[in-house]
């Protein structure tokens, strides 16, 4: 069984090493013993392990159930009371309800039992097997696509001694059973059923009657067509980002693929799992992972015994919001101020609009310094807009607070630029088209010329989205003004 750490896990049953559990990497050059059963009271491990939805490996030994955790190691989970519970004989399965199910031999009447054990060790026997109803000496169970448990038994009584196929609910209600026959299916199955991608159940037997050529067959492969739907064959887990900031969350999606190649969104049905809950956790059934600490974790989804790929998600330290664009508003227009390419702005400024790298949750009208704003809008988004009284002339050092009472910060409390804030110099001279610090007839001619060329925002003195006579007239009224 593949563990989530990429190792193969297995158990042995015989000396000279006494029963152990081990792990080995796929290249075979890393091997280690992870459990020693000697003197544990568990007896001898039987068959394989099952990887449950919590990322822990579970197995059955003759005298109890155990688990191997990648964190805490090897531990008994439950010890069988063999007179009533029976004794372990085959691997466990995990059903849709998250519980583990198994079939024991022995027990009352020495005919076997079916039991349920929760991941916390809560045990309940749900069915006593019998030679006439289910057969005896059970193999491992199968949780089929109908949600029920399907089993095979090696022996039976009445109607044939070659074993049976039986079906029970997870509550232990026996729904039906079928004798296996020498002339029909073959008898004495020694392995559990499997469900094909076509929904049908397939099994093997270890004995058969005489063939047409007179020879005896050693076994058969048989099929049970119970009309079951195609089984879930795989689950793919996806998310927008492989890395998110601490304090944020990310929605995961689980897409299931069935045996008939149909797909379905299983996000709400699967059980979500984070390998390191201290890094990211899930709410119930939503697929929304919340980052709670820096580090990495593997996200998986499980349903009906099928576990998805592992999506490795890294949680990074929260990134503070930073400024990505600084705009001035004038008329119906805006202009992004970049560097010092232009010294003076030729418009009447009525607002400051700032775009941040992430939404800003906290801020106020006084978070903008250098000019007295009268209103602020956009909190909760990545774009904030301050309304300011019209500015036609002057030099202003505007600032955005990164600390103090007026701090701008995101929903996680990270302040702007990690507390450094931001400042931007603004020089405003309405009508100064040519950026020479004065308004003269040269600006008048320049704006008039701009009427017949492609739109030049610097000539749109009125800020109405067009350069026309109104801009020329406005410049005319400004002749003689200069920056102090």
């Amino acid at each position, binding site marked *: 069984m593949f563990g989530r750490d990429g190792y193969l896990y297995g158990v042995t049953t015989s000396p000279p090493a006494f029963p152990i559990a081990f792990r080995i990497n796929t290249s075979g050059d890393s091997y280690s013993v992870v459990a020693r059963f000697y003197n544990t009271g568990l007896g001898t491990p039987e068959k394989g392990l099952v990887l449950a939805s919590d990322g822990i490996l579970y197995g059955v030994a003759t005298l109890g159930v155990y688990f191997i955790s990648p964190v805490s190691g090897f531990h008994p989970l439950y010890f069988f009371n063999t007179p009533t519970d029976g004794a372990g004989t085959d691997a466990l399965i995990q059903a849709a309800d998250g519980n583990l199910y198994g079939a024991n031999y022995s027990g009352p009447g020495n005919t076997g039992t079916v039991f349920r054990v929760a991941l916390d060790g809560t045990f309940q026997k749900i069915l006593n097997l019998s030679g006439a109803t289910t057969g005896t000496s059970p193999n491992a169970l199968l949780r089929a696509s109908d949600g029920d448990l399907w089993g095979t038994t090696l022996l039976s009584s009445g109607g044939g001694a070659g074993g049976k196929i039986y079906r029970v609910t997870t509550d232990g209600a026996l729904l039906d059973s079928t004798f296996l026959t020498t002339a029909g299916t073959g008898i004495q199955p020694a392995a559990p059923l499997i469900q094909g991608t076509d929904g049908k159940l397939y099994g093997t037997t270890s004995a058969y009657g005489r063939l047409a050529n007179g020879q005896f067959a050693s076994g058969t492969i048989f099929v049970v067509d119970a009309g079951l739907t195609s089984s879930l064959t795989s689950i793919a887990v996806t998310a927008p980002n492989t890395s998110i900031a601490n304090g944020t969350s990310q929605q995961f999606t689980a897409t299931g693929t069935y045996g008939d190649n149909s797909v379905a969104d299983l996000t709400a049905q699967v059980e979500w799992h984070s390998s390191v809950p201290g890094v990211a956790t899930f709410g119930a059934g939503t697929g929304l992972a919340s980052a709670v600490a820096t580090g990495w974790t593997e996200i998986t989804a499980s349903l009906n015994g099928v576990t998805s790929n592992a999506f490795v998600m890294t949680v990074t330290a929260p990134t503070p919001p930073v400024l990505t664009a600084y705009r001035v508003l004038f008329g119906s227009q805006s202009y992004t101020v970049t560097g010092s390419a232009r010294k003076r702005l030729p418009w009447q400024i009525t607002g400051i609009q700032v775009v941040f790298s992430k939404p800003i949750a906290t801020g106020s009208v006084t978070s903008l310094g250098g000019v007295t704003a009268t209103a602020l809008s956009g909190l909760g988004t990545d774009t904030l807009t301050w309304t300011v009284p019209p500015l036609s002339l002057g030099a202003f050092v505007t600032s955005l607070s990164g600390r103090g009472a007026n701090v701008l910060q995101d929903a996680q409390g990270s302040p702007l630029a990690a507390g450094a804030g931001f400042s931007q110099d603004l020089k405003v001279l309405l009508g100064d*088209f040519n950026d020479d610090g004065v308004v*003269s*007839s*040269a600006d*008048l*001619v320049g704006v*008039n*010329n701009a009427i017949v060329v492609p739109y030049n925002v610097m000539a749109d003195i009125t800020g109405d989205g067009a350069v026309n006579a109104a801009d*020329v007239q406005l410049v005319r009224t400004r002749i003689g003004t200069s920056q102090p």
Partner: protein
Amino acid sequence: MISRPRTLTALAVAVITACVAARANASSIVSIQSVTVAAGSSANGIDVELTNTGPSALSIGGFSFEISIATLDVSFTGADTFTTAAYIFGGNSLFGPILAAPASGQSLLVSDIFAIPFSGATLGAGATVGLGRVLFDVSPFAAGGVFSVSLTPFPITSLSDELGNDVPIDVLSSGQITISAPQPSAVPEPSSLLLLASGIAVGMRRRHRK
């Protein structure tokens, strides 16, 4: 003795050279043309002109000027393109013929540009054109006298070429408004009236005796 004429010649050449150099550097003059008006008159005009004093042609796409006077007895009321010298943008004025809105005060800002974008008026070397006629009223109570009229320096008074580049103005030349005092009316003095009355009385007495 021989050296004196040479010294005078050299001095004269130096003076002429200095004058030529000064003219070569000065390429434009904006000047106010002086006028004489009577107290109580209205709708008087005073021209502002541009002269290209440089050696090459000058292209002008726009201008502005502000004219100012100190006395409160003169009030500028507007400006138009009806100048004595040909108006600089005649036929292609964007704002003309009225270059300034009706006003009343001791200063007035005037501006105009060539109506066709990226084009301007060409002033040949030595040419003079009108930049505007400033209209003004004179108070009927104004005392006679000479009052200086000045131009406000750059950037209020400015020239631009057709591409929107500043054209330096080398000289701003002020002008004068001379206000002539009102002619006093002939009022007889009391002694003259007494003499006249005596003469009339004597005349009437003599006629009566005849």
